[in-house]
């Protein structure tokens, strides 16, 4: 059982944004989508949840054509958490999370006890019980993101799409958000900005550049200095995380600053 993108190409405004994308997300795995700004990470994700329509290719969920499903049925299987966004209306945390029940309800259905129990549990799982009745807009960025994760949980899907969910968050909340999501055992496809963080949490990563997948595989195989230079055009050192052994990026200054670039690169000492 898996979520499969097969030969996916998406045009926006007549321009090809991503082409021939193949990604497989096996059940229970955390797959990261990496790549520089504008490389097409979001576009791929948005093709899965129907903001963009692929010109070619397929999205299969357990072998069934996801894009041919009814909107509601697709949303019952796949939930999305994207970058923290502002909401121009006054919703409480409770109301926000209840919106996650949308794909499960018919036109005139009221919230029933089951919905309330699911929503309360979702709020509890992200640790937001004490802000249940607060207005969503009064929360901090990290708190908002937790509430949006609760909404995704209440949606009852077994797949989660994350579109740079840690943008604009400080390091504590970045870790918190990813730790939270990784702990659910859901199948996750996440566009991530921070390669070191991605290496910590992902089982597999796909590296994107200019709308095509350059390479994919376990983080250790993909996140290398050459690959980062190739995809991002940036000069970095890649070292091993001292605890997990996952690749970790260390930025370097360019030669123009008068720093020596040539010669053997010695990994820095980390205690």
């Amino acid at each position, binding site marked *: 059982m898996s979520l499969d993108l097969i030969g996916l190409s998406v045009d926006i405004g007549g321009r090809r944004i991503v082409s021939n994308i193949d990604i497989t997300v096996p059940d229970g795995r955390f797959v990261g989508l990496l790549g520089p700004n504008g490389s097409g990470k979001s576009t791929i994700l948005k093709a899965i949840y129907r903001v963009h329509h692929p010109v070619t290719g397929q999205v299969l969920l357990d072998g069934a054509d996801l894009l041919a499903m009814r*909107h509601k049925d697709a*949303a*019952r299987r796949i939930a999305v958490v994207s970058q923290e966004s502002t909401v121009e209306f006054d919703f409480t945390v409770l109301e926000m999370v209840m919106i996650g029940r949308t794909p499960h*309800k018919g036109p005139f259905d009221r919230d029933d006890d089951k919905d309330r129990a699911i929503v*309360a549990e979702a709020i509890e799982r992200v640790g937001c019980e004490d802000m*249940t009745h607060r207005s969503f807009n009064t929360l901090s960025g990290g708190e908002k993101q937790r509430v949006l994760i609760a909404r995704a949980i209440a949606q009852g899907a077994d797949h989660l799409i994350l579109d740079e969910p840690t943008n604009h968050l400080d390091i504590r909340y970045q870790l918190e958000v990813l730790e939270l999501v990784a702990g659910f055992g859901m199948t996750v496809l996440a566009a991530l900005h921070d390669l070191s963080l991605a290496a910590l949490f992902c089982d597999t990563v796909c590296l994107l550049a200019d709308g095509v997948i350059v390479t994919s595989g376990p983080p250790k195989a993909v996140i290398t200095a050459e690959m980062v230079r190739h995809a991002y055009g940036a000069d970095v050192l890649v070292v091993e995380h001292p605890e997990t052994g996952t690749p970790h990026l260390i930025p370097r200054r360019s030669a123009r600053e008068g720093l020596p670039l040539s010669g053997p690169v010695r990994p820095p000492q980390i205690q």
Partner: protein
Amino acid sequence: MRQGDQQVPVPSASPPAPSPHSPDPGAPIQASPWRRRDRLPLWIVLVACAVLLLVTMTLGVGIGSVSLSPRAVWQVIVDHLAGHPKNTVADAIVWQIRLPRVLLAAVVGAALTTAGTVVQVLVRNALADPFLLGISSGASVGATAVLLFGAFASLGIWAVSFGSVLGALAAMAAVFLISRTRHQLAPTQLILVGVVLSALFESVTSFLIFRGNPQATQSVLFWLLGSFGNANWAQLPIPAIALVVAMGYLLSQGRPLNAFAMGAEPAASLGVDVHRLRRNLFVVTSLMAGVAVAVSGVIGFVGLVVPHIVRLIVGSNHRRVLPVGVLFGAAFMVLGDLLARTIVAPQEMPIGVITAFIGAPTLIVLIRRRPYLYGATQ
């Protein structure tokens, strides 16, 4: 003020036991978030607004050059409903003149409030309104064109409303297309384009009327500032039917509307068919604004002020905002019309003057409270 009383929260007002218990007795954590500071129960707000509407309608029918007691007003109404109308002066005043006017004001108030609420969701901005976006003035162009040039004559009594709805649709499409920048709608652009087109449409309306009849100042005033002065029973069915149909659809879409308020992309991820919903909301907004303008001219700010007050009371869950808005918007307009015909009696003030007096300061306060929506850096 009566509305003032409505806004006082009633914390201990015996909630209607929404069975907040968790199904699992071993999980007490689930029960606690539901008790504290939940929103006011919907039925309390609905009952309060219904009472408010009945009171304002009774006052609206009773007060005037000849004032009638609430009791006399209801006596006439009961007589008519029972099928035994009496041939009295009070009967003529209530049934022929004031009741159709008050009912029309109520329906138009409800329609404009609904249009405002929906257009706010459409553009994801709590400061939008069919008047500010030029939709109402577009409708008035359509209505006056029909009246002066006899377009759609085959539609009979529906012709003016039809032209008006068509004008609203065209105006709305124009505002959205012009202010669209690549993939998103920028609120600042939207409002600016709306204001510009609104001024243009008002001039077109005036131009059409003066071409039709150079002595038509009165008629221009009607279309630009609105009035219920010509109200009669025959005008009621079209807006009333449109309101019922639109509300039926919107109430069925309460959850998708809430999802759409998060933005089009989150809504898509929540299983909402965004394209279909957006198109339907377009039509509903134009329908509501169009039928309202066809019978009462362009009445500004109602679609902005009333949804805002309602959102303050019940939050932004549209399954609550919409029904409460209908009752509150109706009461607001009935009260506004009562003021319009009494404060300078025996003269009559265009109702748009009254609603602008209330609406403009409200808008300014709102903009100052949330400057970032209008392009200021956060």
